[in-house]
């Protein structure tokens, strides 16, 4: 299976270089350091190692469907112009064998080329990259972050030097996620109240944060800089303000930041403060995929209730 994927990947790379030259489409013109306001209409700047796979697939599909759409429009226009009122219509039910065969053949070709390309590449990309958590977990320097979403902010938790969550050396931040460049960053997502969706447009990836579930997501950054974290699931009155900042740092910068933060957090750690221990034991990559913990109850029900109540789900928010 894996060998198969590797081969297909190789094949795909060659196809990519071929098609990239064919696909001359909108490319974004962005200032170097976001969140400096962006200009232009195209895809946001891609700062992930794998995002180009998605961009390529989007653009290649745009290329194909543009051809199909243009053919359709020309066909309609030509028919209207050529075969108007004065043209004698041909009496033809179009159900003879060769007509049917022609229609089937055309449909099959379109399906195999356009949908086939999408299916083929997406299947490889999803299995080798985007949903391949096993591979990402194996990386020795992988960064693990737990995200707890609530109305209307993102809590992030890093395990700290001991590698365990909910301990004294955890780093906990609000709407501020810092990651190093070049290594896999693994997220596990939960929500306190309603459904949110954790989206990193510049890394081309998103995943829902659901109450009662632990969802996963991973990516690798290839450039440093500051980028927006967006919520893409309607989550109430201030959904549009549920914005975070993703800072991609060089590895040494990240290490010095995390060491410093870890020390600071350890000093302020209060073992009696249950509300601060909203994290969970990191879910292994090879456990079941549906976010159900082995205790038989949804994980984030274990999130501290005190915290849940303090979260602003208050009616007055909706005046």
């Amino acid at each position, binding site marked *: 299976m894996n060998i198969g994927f590797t081969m297909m990947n190789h094949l795909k790379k060659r196809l990519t270089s071929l098609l990239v030259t064919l696909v001359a489409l909108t490319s974004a013109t962005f200032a170097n350091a976001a969140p400096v306001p962006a200009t232009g209409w195209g895809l946001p700047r891609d700062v992930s190692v794998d995002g180009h796979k998605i961009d390529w697939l989007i653009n290649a599909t745009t290329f194909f469907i543009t051809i199909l759409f243009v053919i359709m429009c020309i066909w309609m226009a030509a028919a209207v112009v050529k075969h108007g009122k004065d043209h004698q219509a041909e009496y033809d039910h179009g159900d003879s064998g060769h007509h049917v065969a022609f229609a089937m053949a055309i449909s099959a070709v379109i399906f195999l080329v356009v949908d086939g390309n999408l299916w083929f590449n997406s299947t490889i990309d999803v299995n080798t990259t985007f949903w391949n958590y096993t591979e990402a977990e194996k990386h020795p320097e992988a960064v693990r972050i737990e995200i707890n979403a609530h109305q209307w902010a993102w809590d992030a938790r890093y395990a700290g030097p001991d590698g365990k969550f909910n301990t004294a050396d955890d780093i906990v931040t609000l709407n501020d996620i810092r990651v190093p460049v070049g290594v896999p960053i693994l997220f596990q997502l939960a929500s306190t109240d309603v459904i949110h969706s954790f989206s990193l447009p510049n890394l081309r990836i998103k995943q829902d944060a659901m109450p009662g579930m632990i969802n996963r997501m991973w990516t690798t950054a290839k450039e440093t800089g500051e980028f927006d974290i967006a919520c893409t699931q309607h989550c109430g009155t201030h959904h549009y303000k549920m914005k975070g900042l993703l800072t991609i740092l060089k590895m040494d910068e990240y290490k010095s930041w995390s060491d410093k933060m870890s020390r600071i957090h350890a000093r302020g750690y209060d073992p009696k403060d249950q509300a601060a221990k909203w994290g969970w034991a990191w879910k292994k990559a090879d456990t079941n995929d549906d976010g*159900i913990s082995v*205790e*038989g*109850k949804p994980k984030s029900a274990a999130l501290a209730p005190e915290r849940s109540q303090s979260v602003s789900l208050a009616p007055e928010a909706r005046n």
Partner: protein
Amino acid sequence: MHNVVQLHPQALLEQRRNEQTSAIGMMVALGSWGMMFAALFFMYLGLRAHTLAWPPPGLPALPIALPSLNTVVIGCSSVALVRALRSMREGQRRPASLWMLATFVLGLAFVGLQTLLWWTTWQQGLTPSTGTLGTVFYSLTVLHALHVAAGLAVLAYLLGMTLGGRSMAERVTTLRLCGMFWHFVGGVWAFMFVGMFLL
């Protein structure tokens, strides 16, 4: 056995065709209804699949004796309704009325026993807000009982018509449709009995 159907052959044909049309409509309606209950079952199975121990720890197990009895009761009522329809087709007013009465009484008994069931579980501390067990148990059984009650209302109307000496030939279609609905509701109960109380 006297044949009360003294309709013109053409009219008889028309009536039979209309009955078939109505039966097709009812089948579509029941398909629809079935999907509604299927969605509820999907929900029940989904919630149950998320909980390793069922009933969830700290909650009482659902009783089994009363629902078993109720299964028998609703099964018998379906049989009685089949007999009622047969008698009505044959134009026998007295047996038709008696069988319908039996169906009605059994249906009423079913609702009564369900109420007893709810009372028992409520006494044991199970309310609609006690976890997913209470949620699905009350929602599904109450919705189902409402359907039984609706069936009972139609049965009562038909019984009144038949006892009141109205033409039975005209009511055959209504009773047949009522019967289809009644068997459907019984079938839903069978699913519920196996899915919720036995397993």
